[in-house]
């Protein structure tokens, strides 16, 4: 008989879904905000929803979720810095109509960086919450979330709705 030891997934599912929704909902109830801030479930296996096969439960996705929080905030921070830098750049460019080669080079670097901001989460990383300020964009019939230049695509991981960094 196959030993079914990974049936915690649903619990994880529920938990991550909660985290996800708590992150998005503008008026999240206190309990959920608390959950999110406390990293409630992060880093620990969860209450199983099945008696059989509990041992094989995984903390994999939860670990991902934890790193995600850090990455997301890093990405936000990076995006903000990026915008500030871009603004300075534009200002500088406006002041110096006769742009130097150096300046152009810097601008090119800036644009390249804007396409994929430094500190962006690794491609293929799975997050349970999107950073703030994402906009949906459809490319080749697939919907992505553009979050400050980092693209995410929705997917199910187990029973959880998650976002995969593109």
């Amino acid at each position, binding site marked *: *008989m*196959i*030993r*079914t030891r*990974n*049936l915690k*997934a*649903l*619990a994880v*599912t*529920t*938990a991550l*879904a*909660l985290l996800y*929704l*708590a992150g998005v909902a503008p008026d999240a109830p206190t*309990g*959920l905000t*608390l*959950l999110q801030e*406390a*990293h*409630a*479930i*992060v880093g*620990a*296996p*969860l*209450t*199983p*929803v*099945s*008696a*059989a*096969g*509990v*041992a094989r439960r*995984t903390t994999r*996705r939860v670990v991902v979720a934890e790193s995600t929080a850090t990455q997301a905030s890093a990405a936000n921070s990076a995006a903000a810095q990026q915008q500030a830098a871009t603004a300075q750049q534009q200002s500088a460019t406006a002041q110096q109509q006769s742009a130097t080669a150096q300046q152009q080079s810097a601008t090119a670097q800036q644009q390249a960086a804007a396409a994929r901001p430094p500190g962006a989460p690794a491609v293929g990383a*799975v997050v349970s919450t999107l950073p703030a300020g994402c906009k949906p964009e459809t490319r080749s019939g697939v*919907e992505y979330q553009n979050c400050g230049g980092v693209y995410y*695509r*929705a*997917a*199910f*991981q*187990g*029973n959880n*709705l*998650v976002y*995969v960094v593109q």
Partner: protein
Amino acid sequence: MKSSVHRRPTAALSRCFAIAALTTLSVAAQAQSPAIAPEAKQLLKASTDFLASQQRFSADTRNTLEIVLKSGQKIEFNSTGRQYVQRPNKLRSERSGDLIEQVFVYDGKSLTLYQPQEKVYAQVAAPATLEEMLDFAREKYDVVAPFGDLLFRNAYDILMDGVTEGIVVGKAVIEGIVCDHLAFRGEYVDWQIWVQEGAQPLPRRIVITTLDLPNAPQFAVTVTRWNLEPSFDAQTFMFTPQAGAKQIDLLPR
């Protein structure tokens, strides 16, 4: 044995021997009586066999899931579910709760996971029987149905896997139904099940207690309604995406 307190050394010594003898006896008694009471096994087996023999049924459930915060505080989340089963190869499981609404549909060919609120669904080809599909979903995709164990025709084997102790607690009443209350211990979880008394030994409630997490969080399912003569229609096990629903990937494990 005398109940008066003796202070003489010989009395103390004899008491030591008595305790030693009693300890030996109790160990012997434990070895003699099986750790899993036969009555508990029988009652469970009757229930799982009964459910396995049902070709079509639906069950409404009320679920509670406890989550332990890092602070140690326990938070409870509630959801309700409805399961539609038609053996050997159809399942629809709907769940809506504090924050999640999810539908799981298996039509014998494919498995669909759907979240109506977010208007997203994922669909993959699935094996030809309910049991194979449940294993497949769990092993390939980490997708599980809450207490899907009970849907297996060999649910008894699955449930008893790793169980070290089992007792019949006694009679209890769940949702107005008289039940036999059974309690089992495993390596990672303790679990209890309430089985309806009489000719239809349906599981009425199940509680899973996690042993290796602080504050031992529990997951509980109460069946509020069993329907052994459900009327399914063509839509029951068919997934039709709502307008604007987008298909997304189901990531492999």
